[in-house]
């Protein structure tokens, strides 16, 4: 069995690597939460609101270029040529993961590979959103693997910082209650206070002042959340 006898620990984060860590967290969370939000909207489309996908597009801040619920299902989920599609989000997760293999480990990267292989199966594409529960399961395993396998706190917290930023952004866009958003914000604070140097302190202070029950849905808050990263 392989044994690493060398004693020197090689560790370093360049600004380009910090950016990849942050965006890995953001895109991975975007995949997970987008599927979650989509399921709610697809449920509405069953018997309450056939056009719920249009509301979804508005909340996501993307153009509704889809001709019908079926067209939306096909192109928003599986069309690789559509830059907003879920499969494209996964490709961005893969882009960032591949360049971070030595930090996140092959065992974590595997879950991204499994997601993409699953999404590309014709039988899964025929099923639509129902076929994507496995993606959600893989993404949860991905996050579990991030927590379990990455021993370098700076690396782990940088990825999770991206995750929490994305999570706050999407929860606000999809009108979640204040206490939910505040809960995510507090989890982010808990994480970055430990060892994370890529959060801009001044922006964070301003955000703390504006993230209130009355103001949290203002566009300015979203802008602050999306300006937290610095490297």
């Amino acid at each position, binding site marked *: *069995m*392989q*044994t*690493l*006898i*060398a004693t*020197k*620990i*090689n*560790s*370093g*984060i*360049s*600004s*380009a*690597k*910090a950016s990849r860590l942050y965006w890995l967290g953001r895109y991975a969370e975007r995949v997970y939460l987008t599927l979650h939000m989509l399921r709610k909207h697809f449920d509405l489309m069953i018997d309450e609101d056939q056009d719920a996908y249009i509301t979804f597009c508005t909340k996501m801040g993307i153009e509704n270029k889809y001709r019908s619920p079926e067209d939306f299902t096909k192109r928003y989920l599986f069309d690789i040529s559509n830059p907003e599609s879920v499969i494209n989000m996964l490709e961005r997760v893969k*882009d960032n993961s*591949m*360049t971070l*293999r*030595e930090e996140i*480990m*092959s065992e974590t*990267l*595997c879950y991204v*590979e*499994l997601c993409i*292989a699953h999404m590309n199966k014709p039988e899964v594409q025929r099923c639509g959103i129902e076929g994507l529960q496995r993606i959600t399961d893989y993404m949860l395993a991905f996050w579990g693997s991030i927590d379990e396998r990455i021993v370098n706190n700076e690396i782990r917290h940088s990825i999770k910082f991206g995750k929490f930023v994305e999570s706050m952004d999407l929860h606000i866009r999809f009108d979640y209650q204040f206490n939910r958003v505040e809960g995510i914000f507090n989890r982010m604070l808990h994480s970055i206070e430990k060892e994370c*140097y*890529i959060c801009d302190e001044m922006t964070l202070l301003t955000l703390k002042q504006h993230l209130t029950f009355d103001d949290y849905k203002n566009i300015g808050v979203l802008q602050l959340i999306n300006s937290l990263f610095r*490297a």
Partner: protein
Amino acid sequence: MYSLVKQRDTVNKWMERFGVRFGIYKGGNFHEQLFPFDPIPRIISHNDWVEIEAGLIQRVNALNMFLADIYNEKRIVKSGIIPEEFIYSSSGYMAQCEGITPSKSIFSHISGIDLVQAKDGKWIVLEDNLRIPSGASYPMIARTVTRKVSPETFKENAVFDNRNYSTLIRKAMDYVNVDNGLEVILTPGRYNSAYFEHSYLAEKAGVILAFADDLIVENDTVYYKGLFEKRERVGVIYRRISDEYLDPLAFESSSLLGVPNLMRAYATGNVAIMNALGNGVADDKGIYYFVPKMVEFYLGEKAILQNAPTYLPYFEEDKKYVLENLKTLVIKDVAEAGGYGVMFGCEMNEEQLANIKNLIETDSRRWIAQEVIDFIDLEIMDGEERIFRKSDLRAFVISEAETKVWHSGLTRYTRSPTSFIVNSSQGGGFKDTWIMKK
């Protein structure tokens, strides 16, 4: 082994899960594809291996001595063993490396020696790769997977473990590291054909995977650019970028893959580069002809491993033979690699033969000719059928305080029944290589 063959779909699923791919450019576009894996391993007996191992160590030691000599005293040229022209006209020779002695005087830290086994059982060296030999990660991860999928196979067969390749690389990096600096693998990026290997080796060796923008040279010293202007000294770079792209200020000025002034830091001795710059002069296909002579010259020994019978049209006598026997020879362009520039006389029509004759006559240094080795075919699985295909073996030799041979290798096979070209870039697949313990 039967269980391994039976479970090849499971093995391939695991390979997909680990993202075991290689990149390929087709029509100017980048594609990633799985590297086809055949479950039937190449098996090398313990006795065969003992001889191969000794031959490889001897050959790589001689090649390292040649490189040290050629960039310094040039005794082998002065002694008339290798014509001067062969050195200076080699595209791999770098005048900028004259007088430079790398850390611990090692030039080729990782050498990939391509061998074939002739039908009489003899192992023959086809090519030396001393610049950036790649491919070791594939049998390494294949073994990880096959041991998971078919543990009984490895209970029943006493095979050397090959998962220590990254440890060997790491030890070589530790050995040449200058001032205990950071250890990095420098990759040209994820659109390189061997990117999987760069990232996988960085993970398994416990070193940093660096991109050109992550490094900076200040005061002839290489630093890793940390967050907010933090600088950390780099002691060794295992570069996966060709010489000409490594430093835009010293070599190809349009290169975005390299690090400006890296050559200065290297020449000053402030950083070790694995493999050293300028090694291309030793793995030039023309220089290959002289390797058995190098062994005798530097080590005073007869070469244990033989070359394929090779002719240098540069020598009049050889040229005459080559031109008369073109139809039975394989012609290689010394400037090409990766299976390109290899032409079989028996496959050429009259017009092509006339063209190549003309080229050999006008630029004889550019070509070598070899007898076609009838090397053994290995069994591979094609669906449910066992068929035979040509294959070679790339052995990996690691030079640090001692020269060691990795107890495995990359066995590549051609997927076409009529081809001798095994390169992955030309559609070949790979097998695990088992070295038996007894």
